[in-house]
Every structure is written in structure tokens, then in C-alpha cells.
């Protein structure tokens, strides 16, 4: 993992400190900034892109410091900030310029951060990271047995398809050619290739569906 807590620690504290010095320790300046943001948002609502860019660029470090207080993993912090920016964008029409901007922003951001934490918590409860001790041998190939047997099953199933469908699947799905390339290589039309692929996949699904119910 690139971002272990130990590597994230110092960086986080830097973010937090700078944020605190500019945002919370200096209420007068904070007031000015949010007034500024309020004006920017009002203009952004009218379609002023420059004001909107300035606003988003200025609130990003603020959101980051807010997120850093709630979320420990640094890569998640950036995700959360982006999520909050997207939400701000989606509901920017709910901002009333007669009211202060700060509480509006913080309410949205907090909700997104908490939702994100919950979502990650749920994912963490279901998923187990694949780590070194799950590997049988150090060499990577030894851990691909499942993939190898899956590959064999797919090849066998493919062999059972009609030739047109087999070729279409081989070119488009296994060799990942584009439709144009496959059409040139096989002499089939694009439409015919699409139909053949669709039918082929449907047949494959049927074959594997049957196997699934048997086992």
C-alpha cells in the first residue's frame, strides 16, 4: 500500500496546521474569505466561470483540512474532497447569497465525508485485502492457477460455438481488436460482427450458467 498511516502522518499534520493557521485561528480573515466565497458563488450561479474556478480552488484546501480531521487515510481524504466538490457543484443552486457561505459549505462537506466513511467502512467489512501471506509461493505464476483453469474452461466453451461466433469473440474479446480491425481481418461487416459477438456471448453465458447449476 502506498499510503500507510505512518507515511500519511506528517503530511496530514502539515495540511492541518496550515489550515488551522489560515482558517480557524484568524476569525477576521475567515470572515472576509467566506464573504468573498459568497460573492464568488453568487456570480458562479449566474454562470461566471472565472469566479467559480476561483471559488473551487480556494475552498479545496479548506475542504482538505476539514476532511483530514475526520479521515485518516490520505488517499481517502482526496477522494472525499472530490466528492464534496462534486456535491457542491450538483446543489449550487440551493445556496442563498443572502446567507453566509461557510455553514452551507461545511454542512454539505461534512455529510459527504461521513457518508464516505460509512461506505468505506462497509466495503472494509466485506473485503479482505490480498496480502503476502495469502500467496502460496513467492513466484507470481504459482498464484494464477485459478486463472489458468478459468482460461481452459473459456477455451473449451469457445470451441463449442459456431465458427462465426467463435471468431468474432476471439478477435473482439480475447485479442481486443477494434470493430474496424476485426472487420478488415475477417471480411465480415461491422454489423455482422456485432450480432455474432452478441450471440456468442449469449451462448457462452448459457454454457457457463449450466455448469454453474451443475456444480
Amino acid at each position: 500500500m502506498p499510503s500507510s498511516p505512518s507515511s500519511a502522518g506528517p503530511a496530514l499534520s502539515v495540511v492541518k496546521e496550515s489550515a488551522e493557521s489560515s482558517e480557524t485561528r484568524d476569525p477576521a480573515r475567515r470572515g472576509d474569505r467566506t464573504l468573498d466565497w459568497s460573492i464568488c458563488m453568487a456570480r458562479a450561479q449566474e454562470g461566471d466561470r472565472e469566479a467559480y474556478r476561483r471559488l473551487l480552488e480556494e475552498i479545496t484546501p479548506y475542504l482538505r483540512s476539514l476532511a483530514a480531521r475526520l479521515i485518516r487515510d490520505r488517499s481517502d481524504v482526496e477522494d472525499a474532497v472530490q466528492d464534496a466538490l462534486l456535491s457542491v457543484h450538483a446543489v449550487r443552486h440551493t445556496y442563498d447569497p443572502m446567507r453566509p457561505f461557510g455553514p452551507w459549505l461545511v454542512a454539505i462537506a461534512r455529510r459527504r465525508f461521513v457518508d464516505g466513511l460509512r461506505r468505506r467502512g462497509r466495503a472494509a467489512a466485506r473485503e479482505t485485502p490480498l496480502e503476502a501471506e495469502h500467496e502460496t509461493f513467492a513466484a507470481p505464476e504459482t498464484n494464477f492457477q485459478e486463472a489458468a483453469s478459468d482460461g481452459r474452461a473459456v477455451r473449451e466453451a469457445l470451441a463449442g460455438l459456431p465458427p462465426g461466433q467463435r471468431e468474432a469473440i476471439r478477435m473482439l474479446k480475447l485479442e481486443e481488436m477494434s470493430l474496424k480491425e476485426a472487420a478488415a481481418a475477417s471480411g465480415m461487416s461491422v454489423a455482422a460482427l456485432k450480432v455474432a459477438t452478441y450471440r456468442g456471448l449469449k451462448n457462452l453465458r448459457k454454457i457457463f450458467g449450466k455448469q454453474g447449476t451443475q456444480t
Partner: protein
Amino acid sequence: MITTPDLIESLVARAEPVRRLRPPLARAAAWLLFAGLMLVLMVAIKGLRPDLELSLRQPGFAIDVGAALATGILAAVAAFVVSLPDRSRLWLWLPVPALLVWIVNIGHSCLTAWVDLQPGMHLGDETGCVAALVMTGAPLALTLLIMLRHTALFDPTPVAVAGGLAVAGITASLLPLFHNHDASVLILVWNLGIAALLTAAAGAFGRRMFTWVAPR
């Protein structure tokens, strides 16, 4: 993953002018106006019940209609206010007094008219009532859902509960006006039951419903 400066650029590129929401009270009023139109429409279709004046003279019935209407109106106001991210959640308490009056009144009617409650009373008649309830409630609920869709991104559940209560209160107060039933306690209880069910359902599924119509 897209970097944050890139994301900002893409958002700026999509920054078309937007229409600000009107103040929540004005929006609540607009929705209530729509509810009023629904009432007019329903009355035009089904006609007011002939004995309305007589029924309204019974204090239990009149208080029931009044309290349900007040609950609906106040809950609608609460839903519209709380749907904005920077407003206090305390607004959710707004419909509670009217709701309490509604519940207490029904409890009182139940106690005083206990003898009127016969077991297995004409439940067959209720199907028409259900149809009318759905016909009034569904458009109201759908309109409210769309008008409040921006709330999906922050805190949909309290808004959904308030919204559910608003729809329930309004329908519960409209129905007895034209639905041809005696003002029996059963109807009053039944109305409140539906209201409770609707509000609970809104609480349980509100998040999903709002996500469904959410702005992107």
C-alpha cells in the same frame, strides 16, 4: 483517479447558470397550492359529501381535519426548510404540536365513542377509500420528492420523514371532506394509521427515493 485540479476544471467547464431556489416558505406555499388544486379537482370529480356541514359540527371530526391539515402544512414547511443544507434541524419539530393534537384527539374520540367501535365493521368499504387516498397522495408525494430532490446529497432521511408526514397530513385532512363516510372513529384511526405508515415508509425508503431523482 482524476486529479483535483482536473476535476475543478471539468466542473468549471460545466458551470452553466443555475436558477436559485426560491425561499423555502415560498416553495412550501407553492406545493400547498398544488395540494389545494388537487382538492378542487377531487371535489370536482367526486363532489363534496352532502353531510359535510353536519360532520364538521362534531368537534371530534372538525379537530381531526384541522389538526391533520395543520400537521401537513407545518410538516411541508419543515421539509422545505430542512432540505437546505445550512438550516437548523430544529425545524423538524415544527409539526409536532399539531401532530400531538391530532393523536390526542383521536385517542379522546376512541375513548368517548368506544361503544361505536364494533368489531369487523364494513371493512369492504375501505377499498374505495384506499383508491381515493392513492389518487390524492401519489401526485402530492411525487411532486414533493422532485421539489426536494437536491437533498439526496446531504441528509435525505429527516427530510423524507417530514415530507411523508406532510403528504399524510394533507391527504388525511382532504379525504374526509369529500369521501362519503360517516365520521366514525374508525375512519379517524384509519387515517392516522395510514399517516404513520406513510411517514415510516418515507423514513425507511426516503434515502433511496431521493437518490433515484437526485441531481447529478
